[in-house]
C-alpha cells in the first residue's frame, strides 16, 4: 500500500500522452450513523489517467473501487483531495464530457431502446437530425438495430447493458467510466462485450476507466491496470500490460497473457485475504 505514485505510473508521466484526469490525495470517509461507526472507504490515493488510454481498476471486494469511480465522475464528493478533468476541478457534479455506465441495469423500462439511447440528447437541445444520426450510429454500433422499438424487458441482460452503453456513447464522452458493467453477465457474453468495448474505445479515442473484479477481463482490455489494496483502498501497484492497441479477446490465446493475470493475482491475493478478514470481523 502506498501513497506515492508507483514507478510504472511515474514513467508514464514522462510519456507523450497528456493527462486527461487526475486524482490528488483523495480520501473518502463515510460518516458515522446511528450505531454504525465511520467508514474510511478510500485513500489517500493519487492517480492520473492519460488521454486515450484504457485503464482498469481491480481490487478486493469492498476496497472502494466504486467509490473511486463515483469520486472521479463527480457523483460523490471526496472527504479530502482534489479531482481534475481536462484541467478543471470536479466537485459534486458530473462534468460535460464524462459518461458513466453502471453495473446495475440502468435502462429506463418505460422507454423503447431508441428513446433510451436518445434520452440524454433530447434534453440537451441537440437538433432532431443530429439526434437521429447519433442514435442510428450508436444503435447500429451496439448491434441493437433490430430492437429499436423494443422495451428493455424484451431484451437480455447483455442487450440491456448495451442500451446503457449506447446511451452514454451518443453523448460523445471524452472520458468513459464503467463500473463493472458486465458483472451480471455470463462468461461468453462478457468476452464478446469486452470486444465491443475495445472497438468502441478504438473508434471514439475516448479515455476509458473500467472497474472490474475479473482479472482476465482487466488484463485483456487494458493498457494499464491499477491494483487496489483492501479498505481503505489505495493503489499498491499499476501494471502496464503492453498489449497492442488493436486487440480483441483472442489475446487470451497468447502465452504471455497468463503471466499478467498471475502477476495481478499475486498482488491481490494477500489483499483479498485481508478484505475477507475485514468482512468476517464486520
Amino acid at each position, binding site marked *: 500500500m502506498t501513497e506515492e505514485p508507483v514507478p510504472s505510473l511515474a514513467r508514464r508521466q514522462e510519456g507523450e500522452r497528456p493527462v486527461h484526469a487526475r486524482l490528488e490525495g483523495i480520501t473518502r470517509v463515510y460518516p458515522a450513523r446511528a450505531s454504525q461507526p465511520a467508514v474510511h472507504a478510500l485513500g489517500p490515493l493519487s492517480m492520473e489517467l492519460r488521454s486515450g488510454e484504457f485503464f482498469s481498476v481491480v481490487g478486493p471486494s469492498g476496497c472502494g473501487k466504486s467509490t473511486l469511480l463515483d469520486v472521479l*465522475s463527480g*457523483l460523490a464528493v471526496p472527504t479530502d483531495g482534489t479531482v481534475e478533468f481536462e484541467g478543471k476541478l470536479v466537485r459534486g*457534479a*458530473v462534468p*460535460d464530457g*464524462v*459518461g*458513466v455506465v*453502471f453495473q*446495475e*441495469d*440502468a435502462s*429506463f*423500462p*418505460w422507454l423503447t431502446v431508441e428513446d433510451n439511447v436518445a*434520452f*440524454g440528447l433530447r*434534453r440537451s437541445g441537440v437538433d432532431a437530425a443530429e439526434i437521429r444520426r447519433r442514435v442510428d450510429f450508436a444503435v447500429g454500433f451496439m448491434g441493437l438495430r433490430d430492437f429499436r422499438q423494443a*422495451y*428493455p*424487458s*424484451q431484451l437480455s441482460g447483455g442487450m440491456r447493458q448495451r442500451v446503457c452503453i449506447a446511451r*452514454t456513447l451518443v453523448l460523445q464522452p471524452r472520458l468513459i467510466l464503467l463500473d463493472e458493467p458486465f458483472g451480471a453477465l455470463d462468461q461468453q457474453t462478457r468476452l464478446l462485450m469486452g470486444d465491443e468495448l475495445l472497438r468502441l474505445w478504438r473508434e471514439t479515442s475516448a479515455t476509458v476507466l473500467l472497474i472490474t473484479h475479473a482479472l482476465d477481463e482487466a488484463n485483456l482490455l487494458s493498457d494499464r491496470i491499477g491494483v487496489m489494496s483492501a479498505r481503505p483502498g489505495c493503489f499498491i501497484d499499476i501494471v502496464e500490460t503492453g498489449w497492442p492497441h488493436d486487440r480483441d479477446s483472442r489475446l487470451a490465446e497468447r502465452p504471455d497473457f497468463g503471466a499478467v493475470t498471475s502477476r495481478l493475482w499475486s498482488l491481490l491475493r494477500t489483499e483479498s485475504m485481508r478484505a475477507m478478514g475485514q468482512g468476517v470481523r464486520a
Partner: protein
Amino acid sequence: MSKAAWIRLAILVGAVGGLEIACRSGLVPATMVIAPSQMAAATAGLLASGDLGADIRQTFTSVGIAIVLSITGGFTVGFWLHWFPRLRRAMDPFLAAYYAIPHFAFYPLLIVIFGLGALPLIVLATLFAMVAMIVATLAGLDRVPRVLLKTARMHRLSPFEEMWRIRLPAAAPYLFSGVKLAVSYSFIGVIAGEFILSTAGIGHEIAYAYDNFDNPRMYGLILFVLAVVTAFNMLVYAYERQLVRRRGAA
C-alpha cells in the same frame, strides 16, 4: 381467449346460473334475493324510467370530485413526506393506523362542519381514499432504483427534470395501484355515506328501497352500481396491464 379467461367466465356463468335456478325454483325465497334476470330487468326498467337521473348525477359527481381530490391530494402529501424524511417519520404511525379508524363515525361531525348535501360525503370519501394514494406514492418514490437517480445525475438533470423524467415514470406502477385504490375507496365512501345518512344519491335510493322491502328496485340499483364499478375497474385494469406488460413486470 386464454384458458384463465374461460375458467373465469365459467365460474361467473355457473354462479349466476346457479342463483337463477335457486331463485326460480323457490330454493331461495324472493323476499331474500331475486333472480339475476329479474335484477337485470329491474336495472333496465330503472334506467329507462329516468327517475334516477338526479341521484345518478349526484353520486357520480361526488365520486368524481372525491377521486380527483384524493389522487391529487394524496400524491402531493406523499411527495412532500418523501422529500422531508423527518416529517415522514413523525407521520408514519398515523398513516399505519389510519385505516383502523371508523371514518363513517365522523359523518355527523362533517355534517356539522359542512352542512347537509354532497359536500360532507365528498370530504368523507376523499379522507377515506387519500391515504391509500399517500401510501402508494411513498412506496413508489421509495423504490426508485438508486442507479436511475445516479443516471439522472450523470445527465445533469435539474430536480424538476429528475422528478418528471425519472422518479415519476419509475414509480408509475405504484402510483397506479394508488389510483385504483383511490377510485374504489371513493366509490365506497360516497355510496356508503349516502346509504347511512344522505337524502339523495344511489346509496340513499338503495337504502330507501331496502327499508320499503322493494327488492327489485334495491337489487336493480345494486346491479347498476356493480356494473359501473366493474366497467370502470376493467378499463383501469386493461390500461395497467398494458403498462405492466411493456415493462416486463407482468
